[in-house]
């Protein structure tokens, strides 16, 4: 399935515009990857190829950067990305039970995307909102003090 950018633009011209706007200095690579990831939901091979041509940076470097950072993905993701914090403070606050409930409800393992492409379930390290742990982030919505019982209802908010 060809990936399309909003407004009907194709991936290559979208990438080209980004590089024109932000410049082709290597220091712009990560901010540009952020934008591509935001727009497409992930960083496709085509985007990497176009970036390499425009910024004169080897594809291997771009790929190695894109796979290094947690907020960037080189794999397509579901419509909604669920991030579950698995660090110690959330764990001690009852995170383990919430994780079990989340897995049961979605039928997904760590890192998996559901067959209908609705959900991607990923775990993450501390998100800096431990004061209200256990914490789940769905897309950009932060949910704190989550209990295992609340999980099904939380998921109902998304379609």
């Amino acid at each position, binding site marked *: 399935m060809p990936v399309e950018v909003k407004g009907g633009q194709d991936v290559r011209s979208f990438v080209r515009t980004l590089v024109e706007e932000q410049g082709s200095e*290597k220091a712009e690579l990560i901010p540009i990857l952020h934008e591509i990831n935001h727009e497409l939901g992930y960083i496709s091979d085509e985007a990497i190829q176009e970036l390499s041509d425009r910024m004169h940076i080897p594809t291997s470097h771009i790929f190695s950067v894109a796979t290094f950072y947690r907020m960037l993905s080189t794999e397509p993701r579901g419509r909604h990305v669920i991030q579950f914090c698995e660090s110690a403070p959330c764990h001690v606050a009852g995170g383990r039970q919430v994780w079990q409930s989340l897995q049961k409800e979605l039928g997904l393992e760590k890192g998996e995307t559901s067959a209908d492409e609705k959900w991607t379930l990923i775990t993450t390290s501390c998100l800096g909102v431990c004061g209200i742990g256990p914490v789940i982030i769905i897309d950009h919505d932060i949910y704190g003090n989550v209990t295992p019982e609340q999980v099904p209802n939380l998921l109902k908010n998304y379609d």
Partner: protein
Amino acid sequence: MKAIRSMVLVSGDQVSLNHGALEVFNALQQQLAAFGLEEEITVSMVNDVNKPGLDPLVLVYPDAVIYGSVTPEDVPHLVEEHLYKGRVVAEKQISPYDLTGRIAWLSARKGTLPAEHRIVLKNVGLIDPENIDDYILHDGYEALAKVLREMTPEDTINEIKASGLRGRGGAGFPTGLKWQFVAGAKGEKKYVICNADESEPGTFKDRLVLEGDPHSIIEAMMIGAYAVGANEGFVYIRGEYRLAIHRMQKAIEQAEAYGLLGDNIFGTDFSFKLHIHAGAGAYICGEETALIESIEGNRGEPRPRPPYPTTAGLWQKPTLVNNVETLANITAIIRNGAAWYKAIGTTSSPGTKVYTILGNVNVTGLIEVPMGITLREVVSIYAKGMKDGANFKLAQTGGSSGSIIPASLQDTPMDFDSFSKAGVSLGSGALLICNEDVCVVDLAKVLLNFFRFESCGKCNPCRIGNRRSYEVLCNIAEGVGTEQDLKDLQMMADQLYQLSNCGLGQTAGSPLRDILAHFRAEVEAHIKLKVCPAGVCPMSGHRVYQID
């Protein structure tokens, strides 16, 4: 400008927003205008006062009255009774103690928490972070003016040196000395970086400063830049901190519009340009050389040191890297003088420290107190004791790379030197308090899982050591651990420390070392008796069912 008589704050965290905080905010503005009070009463949004079930909250200063949960329909009555007639609406009022410590600053609370002393968080929760005028009204940009007009770069460095300020990013390095190194380094072009990557589990103090008082960081970076001879800077903010990035961006634009950032500041020949770089999610990028690699557009892999960033940092130029909390001390030191600062805290660690309190206690949240108070004081006074009256078992200080400390160290003063003398580290100031329901093997498993995941993979001791330690802990937790595993854990803890290239690997072994030193019997019970005394590990489940 007319005198402000009262300030009204609406909780603006995500949960409150979902529950209509914005509508309440709009209704307040409308009603205040209807009563002609808009000039003397300000309304703004604050974060991190989220109290589930009672949000959105409305806080009225200086009375320190909190209302919750407030609907737009409640607003006319609240405005007429409280803000117009001065009568507190008792039926909507809630106790500040319900707020589990997240509340920024309330006079009522200050009275019961005598030792809380705010320097770093002076403005947080009190001023509108999106309004530069509000910052200026609270002494903002005064320290910068003082430095540029009355002090030479050398004076400035000497003042910071004399204050005894030590870095709050984890290592406690003397800040003035670091400034002096960068000032003394050769090179026309120099940089200043604010390390706002903050990804240490349990730590969110820097986020609150960035969200609540962004101008204080800009001002401090400029003072640092003037002192070391830099004219360009970066704030490296963790990518997930969207609100902090937004507030900082806005603050930079406002400062530029006022001529407080840019060329020839205050008519002097000092110029400064500030950029934001959003992180893309990697704990290791908090390590200063990895952070620099990341700004340059690379994988965040630490460089070998030396050379240190003070001589060869960003694009190989001398670079000053300071943590957010470190910087948040600077303006107060300049305004009030080094002697004032030195009088707070302990002799070798002056000033205050911000702690985030988490875990099995009654009140979790954030405090700023003078250096040198003890863990016992924190738990009993600020955290209001252990939850459900359970017993204190251990605390982890300083996030995942900090130390696991047993009850016997509860009375050690929390300052850099007392802690390092006791063989433990203060780190970022996160305090995770655990009761007896927490199993040390399970805790260590979670911590090593973190390091296994966050290792940048560049050097073998760390990449392999963390993975292997995690696997061994999993075996122990599942009841198939052997005595050899115990020896292996000890060896891996030591080798991680000795052979790793950077601080991540070097500290990854500390949870292992600490549980073996302080809780060895509990680990041995898993191996020899196949029992998890806390009843947490998978094998303990099997055991219980067998007995049934």
